[in-house]
């Protein structure tokens, strides 16, 4: 029976509170382990202690001074911000057209987009690598910005199109009677209504660019153009893995994106459910 009233100790100890607590433990303990280990010193990191005994910010200093981590963050920000901006501009225009303008052949376009969005990245690594090698694009920002934009566009177009469909047609037409052209109508009437879609598409694209590994590893292997995931994966040598430094860098990389996701959690959840539905 759902939500029955409970009395006495059963109000606090029941299946729901136990299940919720277990879920929290399941999710948070590994995250805690990462953060607490980032503060452990060289001695503490080699013992499985729950609370760091020799806590310091030593690892953070190492990550930024002995390794090139500041540069990796800069690279990730450049690539993710430019890709996200491009995706938002292009998907707004395409989503508006596919959602609201009388075009023939919208359905095939949407289906092709759906198919592309499920394609495994490994399928395009070889040709893109060889083509970029030929035109000298390896180890550059555009080597990642172009594929990231293209791979994130299909989902963003789907999202934008769905929000565009939901805007009452009358609003736009009122604008048009007032003499606003289609571009003007898109900018000042449709776009403000589709803002939740922009948030969803934006957060998803940014997160995807921030976390992408395979292409970044294949195309930008040179130290100066590594992004955060590639940088963290290559911290270790063949014989030692500097876990303290790795977790300091990981925490520094994970916290901003976690905050971003928490702020936009509604957009993310609506995007996740739409994503699950759309594939």
């Amino acid at each position: 029976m759902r939500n029955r009233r409970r009395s006495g100790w059963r109000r606090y100890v029941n299946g729901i509170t136990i299940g919720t607590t277990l879920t929290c433990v399941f999710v948070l303990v590994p995250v805690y382990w990462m953060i607490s280990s980032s503060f452990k010193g060289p001695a503490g990191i080699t013992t499985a202690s729950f609370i760091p005994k020799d806590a310091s910010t030593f690892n953070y200093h190492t990550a930024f001074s002995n390794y090139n981590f500041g540069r990796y963050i800069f690279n990730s920000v450049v690539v993710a911000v430019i890709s996200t901006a491009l995706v938002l501009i292009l998907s707004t225009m395409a989503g508006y057209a596919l959602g609201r303008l009388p075009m023939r052949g919208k359905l095939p376009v949407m289906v092709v987009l759906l198919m592309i969005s499920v394609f495994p990245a490994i399928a395009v690594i070889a040709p893109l690598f060889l083509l970029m090698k030929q035109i000298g694009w390896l180890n550059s920002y555009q080597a990642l910005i172009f594929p990231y934009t293209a791979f994130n566009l299909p989902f963003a177009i789907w999202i934008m199109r769905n929000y565009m469909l939901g805007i009452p047609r009358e609003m736009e037409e009122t604008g048009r009677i007032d003499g606003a052209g289609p571009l003007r109508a898109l900018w000042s009437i449709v776009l403000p209504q589709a803002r939740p879609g922009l948030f969803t598409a934006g957060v998803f694209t940014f997160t995807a660019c921030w976390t992408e590994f395979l292409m970044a590893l294949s195309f930008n292997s040179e130290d100066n153009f590594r992004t955060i995931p590639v940088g963290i994966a290559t911290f270790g040598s063949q014989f030692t893995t500097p876990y303290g430094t790795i977790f300091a860098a990981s925490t520094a990389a994970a916290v901003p994106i976690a905050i971003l996701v928490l702020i936009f959690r509604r957009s993310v959840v609506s995007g996740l459910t739409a994503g699950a539905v759309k594939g």
Partner: protein
Amino acid sequence: MATVTAAPPAPDAPSVEVVGRPDQHRKRMARLGWMFTAPALLFIGAVTLFPIGFSVLLSFEHVNVLGSGFQLNGLTSSNYSLVLGNSTWHYALAFTLGYTVVTVIAELILGTMIALVLERLTSGRGWMMAMLLIPWSLITVISAELWGYIYDPTFGVADSIFGVLGLGHPTILGTNASAVIALCIADIWKTTPFVAIIVLAGLVMLPQEIYEAADVDGSSDWSTFWRITFPLLRPTIALAVLFRVLQAFGLFDLPFVLTQGGPGHATTSLAVLGYQAMFQNLAFGPGAAVATTTAVLVVIGCMAFLKVFKAQVGEEGS
């Protein structure tokens, strides 16, 4: 599930299209539509469709990588015969399929359980949702390093736990079976919350009246779940499964960082195998063959799925 659907324009709505020459206006709008869509489609075509075609070509070529470019030295089917007859490829295919099935089923069961619990929370559900997003937003490489630390044979916490429980000191990433299990656990930790969110979002949308009726009829929680909740959730779950299966099939980051595909080839997925062929052996032809066969399998799987769920998706795309 379409949260929004196109409202058909009411015939008597005051529309500019009625004024003047509707046909010409329509044509102009359609042209404008293609102009708006073209930049995005060109981008996607250049960076995904064209390379996919090129990849198929590569998989039938002798590819020579040079210092500053590459050379194609004639058509061949040897890449495919090399790959399809290779026992490592057979293993990678079996491993990727098995891994996909096991992790998706485990994540689905755990995620549904979490969602059922959280759905009954009267307060703090938003915060729980936010918490579930943390593993989702974590870079997979980071989660791989984190689990590598947990599984470390000398100072990992998993080793201490085994020690305390009196189970000895197994080298977790050292034997085939335990490395595969360890990899699955790391994946389940990172992705179960994602499944839980999708199922939870589906649960919240279910009509409450049905549950009240079931309550009145004295249906037990167990039979309410199997007779009402599960059938209603089936579309949500099915599509979450599709999404997860496709993602799991492209498995790369986690084994590449956590186990480097080892011990031996025990955790070599199709994507890891393709990557190793291309970038460690510089065998771009066979690598492209691995990538192409993977992509073909994904497309076949996806088409089969779309056929089964044609009703939902067809409705969606119109």
